[in-house]
């Protein structure tokens, strides 16, 4: 009996060893270095990535991930170009965290590797992610049949408003279907000249700027600054001209917004009520959590007549120059896993960030501020819906022309039409192949 018991025990141990040992070996089979280029080279950003890398190293201790921070000062397109320049300068890079703005440019330069083969060979793991992600968040990463990124997180633009200021001014919270007229009326009620010098000190709204800040306004006016296929700029289309007329009137006619670029510290001014509304994505929630500020909520962008917004999605792509492709692919899978996406949701020691690409993880956002946090995901399907930020291969040229038109218009010295006609004529290259 005792012999039989011993026999079974040995048999079980042998069987378990046969099953577990190969798996354990497989998990630690990868080694070498991964040079990972990420956005934002400030120390606090690096700390977050270090925590993620530490999690990866628990499973793959033989892989060393070298973190290489890129500057966040030139937008996603400028950041992506910076990565490309690093490669051109001889820096070996394996992996990049990049948003849609930079993807077509990198693909056009020929520095990204198609993930098709890895996706085909690893269908089960990829399906686990893709089944959990809205297809619209993957679409911009597929160019001419090749998928270059797996999605990580996304953002859309919503209107943040200071609830204390709204109460103080005696105005209702914005309705879901509010219009440009309702928005203007609210902004007027929230604008104050406190020292009697005929120049407002407290403004209803701050315009912001940039392609991501402007596109929701164009979208809510039924337009865009690029054609749907991202080939042709539409900077002087009637919808864009009308939108700029409206935004310009907020500064020069109604004086409910300061001149764009003159706001010294938007977040502080919003918290103390000197600015009552501004448009942004979910990234603000973490900033307000850290500042212990909760007198705010979010509304859909006002419509003319239907609301619309813009979506920007980011993810992970492998460089052609990678020397460690298999380990890099394992790291990409880890980066898009539920556990890593969970870090975006928010916690005391990790303030909220973007909207996770996985629906299953994103559903937890509603447990976090603000009251209408459900509108982050809701904006995808509300009103005119969300359109992906136009991100053509000549993004820098198009964004640059839009930016020059923007500053010309708000200098007050050039008419909206002249500024936009000039910007349109300055783009001579096509946005698509």
């Amino acid at each position, binding site marked *: 009996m005792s012999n039989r018991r011993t026999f079974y025990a040995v048999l079980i141990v042998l069987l378990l060893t046969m099953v577990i040992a190969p798996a354990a070996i497989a998990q630690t089979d990868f080694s070498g270095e991964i040079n990972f280029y990420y956005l934002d080279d400030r120390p606090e950003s690096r700390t977050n990535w270090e925590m993620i890398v530490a999690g990866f190293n628990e499973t793959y201790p033989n892989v060393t991930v070298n973190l290489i921070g890129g500057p966040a000062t*030139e937008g996603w397109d*400028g950041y992506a*170009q910076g990565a*490309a*320049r690093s*490669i*051109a300068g001889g820096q070996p890079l394996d992996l990049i965290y990049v948003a849609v703005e930079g993807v077509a440019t990198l693909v056009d*330069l*020929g*520095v990204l590797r198609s993930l098709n083969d890895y996706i085909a060979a690893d269908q089960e793991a990829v399906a686990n992610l893709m089944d959990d992600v809205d297809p619209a968040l993957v679409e911009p990463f597929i160019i001419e049949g090749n998928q270059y990124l797996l999605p990580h997180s996304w953002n859309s633009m919503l209107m943040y408003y200071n609830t204390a200021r709204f109460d103080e001014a005696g105005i209702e919270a914005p309705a879901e279907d509010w219009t440009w007229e309702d928005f203007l009326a609210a902004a007027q009620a929230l604008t104050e000249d406190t020292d009697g010098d005929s*120049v407002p000190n407290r403004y209803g709204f701050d315009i912001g700027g940039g392609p991501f800040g402007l596109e929701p306004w164009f979208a809510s006016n039924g337009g865009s600054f690029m054609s749907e296929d991202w080939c042709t700029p539409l900077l002087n289309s009637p919808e864009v001209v009308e939108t700029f007329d409206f935004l310009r009137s907020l500064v020069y006619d109604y004086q409910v917004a*300061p*001149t*764009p*670029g*003159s706001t*010294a510290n938007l977040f502080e001014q919003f918290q103390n009520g000197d600015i009552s509304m501004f448009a942004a994505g979910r990234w603000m929630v973490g900033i307000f959590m850290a500042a212990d500020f909760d007198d705010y909520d979010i509304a859909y962008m006002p419509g003319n007549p239907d609301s619309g917004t813009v979506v920007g999605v980011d993810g992970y792509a492998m460089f052609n120059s990678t020397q460690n492709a298999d380990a890099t692919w394992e790291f990409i899978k880890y980066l898009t896993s539920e556990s890593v996406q969970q870090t975006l949701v928010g916690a005391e020691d990790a303030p909220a960030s973007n909207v996770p690409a996985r629906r299953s993880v994103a559903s937890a956002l509603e447990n976090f501020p603000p009251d209408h946090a459900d509108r982050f995901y809701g904006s995808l399907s509300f009103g005119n819906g969300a359109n992906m930020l136009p991100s053509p291969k*000549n993004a*820098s*040229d198009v964004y*640059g022309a839009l*930016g*020059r*038109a923007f*500053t*010309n218009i*708000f*200098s*007050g*010295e*050039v008419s909206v039409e002249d*500024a936009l006609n*000039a910007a349109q*004529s*300055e783009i001579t290259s096509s946005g698509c192949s």
Partner: protein
Amino acid sequence: MAVTVSPRRRKMVEALIGYAFIAPTMIGFVIFLAIPMVIGIGLMFYEWSMFKPPEFIGLENIQAFFRDPRIFTVYKTTIGMALGLVVTNLTLGLGIALLLNRKMPAVFHGFFRAAFFFPFVVSSVVVAVIWQFLLNKDLGLVNYYLGFLGVERINWLLSSTWSPIAVIITDTWKNVGFYALIFLGGLQNIPRDYYEAAEVDGATPLQKFRSITLPLLTPTMLFLVVITTIGAMQIFGQSFILTGGGPGDATRTIVMYIYENGIRSFKVGYAAVMSVSLLLVIIGLTSVQFILSRRYIHYQ
């Protein structure tokens, strides 16, 4: 027994020693300037994005340069700001040097020289960021103090009229100490005898300045005009940080435009055409300055 060395051999040894002394500079010049310059000139005829092999396209980049609707505006902005910088830096530099050249206790001499020179050693980025705050339309100190004088708030950074002036102010604040120092050197090289002789003749301070100081400072001025013009034509940092080149192209300099095309948009061939055009413009301006100098420069 003395070793006799033929004059020819001696000359050769002397020449070799001379070459050895200039070799480090020449090697640096060839590697970092001459070779890149030759490659740059060659790249004008190629389309190259740094990642694919260069493709020969003949004169297309040069034709594109002459068709570019922004190139004239960018050059106009650059030359306008360069002119402003030459005038402000030289005028204020000379004024400060004249003040520093006056008799005062040594401790004040040291203090004022250090105070005026200090911004010159501060990084351009730091200077631009500081001035961005100072020149803010609503919260800036400059508009705050101008308000006491009844001046309405000026949109320094967002107006096409005022933003180039803002760049000139910022750059002058940073560099004027350097010009003052060079002028001071020039002033101290003028022999006292000339002034004493003029005083004997009953010359007024203004007459002494016009007839002695100014003429004898002209070699210094030529040097400063040439280096300021070359430097100002290549201004980048102040505009880039302070205004981003805007509004529109109101403060976009040619070097910013080269950077945007060559480094950001990967149009390296086109950027090479613009770089060569800048080289030609600078050679042209410097030549004019040297030609004029034959007429206006007075050496002791």
